[in-house]
């Protein structure tokens, strides 16, 4: 199977431009997640790949094949919906058999009653049922074969939807927020199951979600989307540790990344009144944003960017304490996640913490990441 190549895809609904010239390559057999807040165009992109919508411009190719020329059922994609989209009037078994019967039988063979007249059609039905039962069994659904969807729990319904997608062995699976309607425990369990399924089947999964935990924990690569464009495409590690855009940094990671206003003078980067390092491309007088993760602050090492201020709130989460600090040096607040065994922190007290300079991200005024070389610690050139 070749890769899926998406080029210059645009889509407009009324006056809203949902996709603005989107480019993306989905590698064969990878688990790619489209991550973004609602309205970023991720679901639209998925529906375009499935063929449920037609783009205004751009191409979607599977190797040499132009997918846009094919109808949804010819594209060899199976989709799992947030609402499960099971046929409510059919039993679990009939639901799972439907894709096989619709493909395996022609128009005349599908007419009601033909099954009882033609042994060939009867055999096809038996074959479909056999492979559907096998899939249902692999997902632990064999006991529910004769139930109607209304009699199933949310998790069971989504498993049936998975089985219906798996039964025809598609080369691409499309997931549209499949876990959003489930409760937290079930979501966690199914997350692992879907990832296992991907490893077993070895086919391409394209997974849409707004939940960064899902995206980070399941994917080979994540495409972070915003306003109809892909901001960054990379492994979860790259997305988290080297965000290509300030919006990526803001969207991924909890609590949210701390951002402080900085300044670029010549080649040097300044924040909170001190120089912290260099950027290769000089941008004289340019404003920039300095970011660091709440987890990166330490209270023990007297090294790096010093942050101090009054604690305005403390949240206890079990393993961690989340402290919000009103900086003494600037208008902003910073959030720190500290190990909960740390000495007691109280609201109103002063917190002093240090952020290692190599954990600092620098973003230009337009949001793009800048290559940043931290200042060697001891050459601290206070102005």
């Amino acid at each position: 199977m070749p890769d899926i190549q998406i080029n210059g895809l645009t889509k407009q609904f009324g006056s809203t431009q949902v996709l603005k010239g989107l480019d993306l390559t989905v590698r064969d057999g990878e688990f790619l997640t489209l991550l973004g807040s609602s309205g970023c165009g991720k679901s639209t992109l998925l529906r375009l790949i499935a063929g449920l919508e037609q783009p205004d411009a751009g191409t979607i190719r599977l190797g040499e094949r132009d997918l846009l020329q094919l109808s949804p059922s010819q594209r060899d994609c199976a989709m799992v919906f947030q609402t499960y989209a099971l046929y409510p009037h059919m039993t679990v078994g009939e639901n799972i058999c439907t894709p096989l019967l619709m493909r395996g039988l022609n128009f005349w063979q599908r007419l009601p009653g033909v099954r009882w007249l033609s042994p060939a059609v009867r055999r096809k039905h038996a074959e479909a049922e056999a492979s559907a039962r096998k899939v249902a069994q692999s997902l632990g659904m064999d006991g529910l074969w004769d139930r109607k969807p209304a009699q199933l729990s949310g998790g069971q319904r989504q498993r049936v939807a998975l089985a219906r997608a798996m039964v025809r062995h598609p080369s691409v699976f499309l997931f549209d927020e499949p876990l959003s309607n489930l409760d937290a425990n079930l979501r966690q369990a199914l997350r692992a199951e879907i990832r296992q399924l991907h490893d077993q089947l070895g086919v391409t999964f394209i997974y849409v979600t707004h939940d960064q935990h899902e995206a980070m924990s399941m994917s080979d690569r994540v495409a972070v989307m915003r306003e109809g464009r892909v901001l960054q495409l990379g492994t979860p590690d790259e997305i988290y540790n080297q965000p290509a855009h300030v919006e990526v940094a803001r969207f991924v990671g909890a609590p949210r990344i701390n951002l402080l206003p900085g300044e670029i003078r010549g080649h040097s980067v300044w924040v909170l009144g001190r120089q912290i390092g260099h950027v290769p491309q000089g941008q004289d007088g340019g404003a920039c944003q300095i970011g660091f993760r709440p987890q990166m602050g330490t209270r023990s090492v007297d090294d790096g960017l010093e942050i101090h201020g009054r604690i305005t709130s403390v949240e206890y989460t079990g393993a961690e304490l989340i402290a919000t600090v009103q900086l003494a040096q600037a208008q902003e607040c910073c959030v720190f996640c500290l190990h909960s065994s740390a000495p007691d922190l109280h609201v109103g007290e002063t917190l002093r913490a240090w952020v290692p300079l190599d954990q600092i991200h620098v973003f230009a005024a337009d949001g793009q990441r800048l290559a940043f070389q931290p200042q060697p610690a001891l050459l601290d050139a206070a102005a």
Partner: protein
Amino acid sequence: MRIHPLTTWLLLSPATVLLIVLLLAPVATVAVMSLTDWQFGAATLNWIGLANYAELWSDPVFRKSLANTLLYLVLVTGGAVTIGLGAALLIESDTQLRGFYRTAFFMPVASTLIAMAVVWQFLLHPSAGLVNHLLQWVGLMPQDWLNNRQLALYSLAAIGIWQMSGLALVLFLAGLKSIPQDLRDAGALDGIAHPWERFRRITWPLLGPTTLFVVTVCAIRALQVFDTVHVLTRGGPNKSTEVLLHTIYAEGFSFFRMGYASAMTVVFIAGIFFLTQVQHSTMERKTHYG
């Protein structure tokens, strides 16, 4: 807080009184009257038991009237459901003029049928009517729609369908709206792509509860047909358009046989009651895929 039983009765009394005065008492009166030979305006009446019902059983006019009503009911319900569903599917597939079509089709439901009956009388007029002019224009024989014994009931049924299909259409449109788009999408990916397949495998089964509801509503309304018959044919020619309500009216207020008319009314109420029960049970089973 404990509610005094007297308070309960006091609060219930207005509704109870109205229910008894307006609903239960008249029905009970009719039921009792159906067991007598009371004539309208007569000072005395005799208790005759089930004799009225026995007469109904053998009365050719009543039998004809019952048969006509049932035929009318089947024609109008079938026609209105077919046209309503077809139009709803067409309107739903096009987004532009949906509002206009909905209003246009619903207009006959909202308008007064007596007034519309006069319009129809004009349209179906044997010599001056538009329908016959159109028929002649395409080279077909003009017909006397309302005075031909073979045609009159069908003409009335056509008017009934014209009036009722708007209601069916609006109900079907609501039913179609409640089918989630995701199901159609899932179908498109599963290979349920052809419009006919989509209708047969997704739309029609999911419209099941709506269809049952539309059928009963149309049937109840068709059973109550009176105004077009009274204005256009008065049950004629030769009883060919005699329907239940009109027969009851004629027996009671033209022939003054109140006892006999009451017996017919009881049969009529039983029919309405049955259909209402069917409708009620379909309403209860909103989630009908259990």
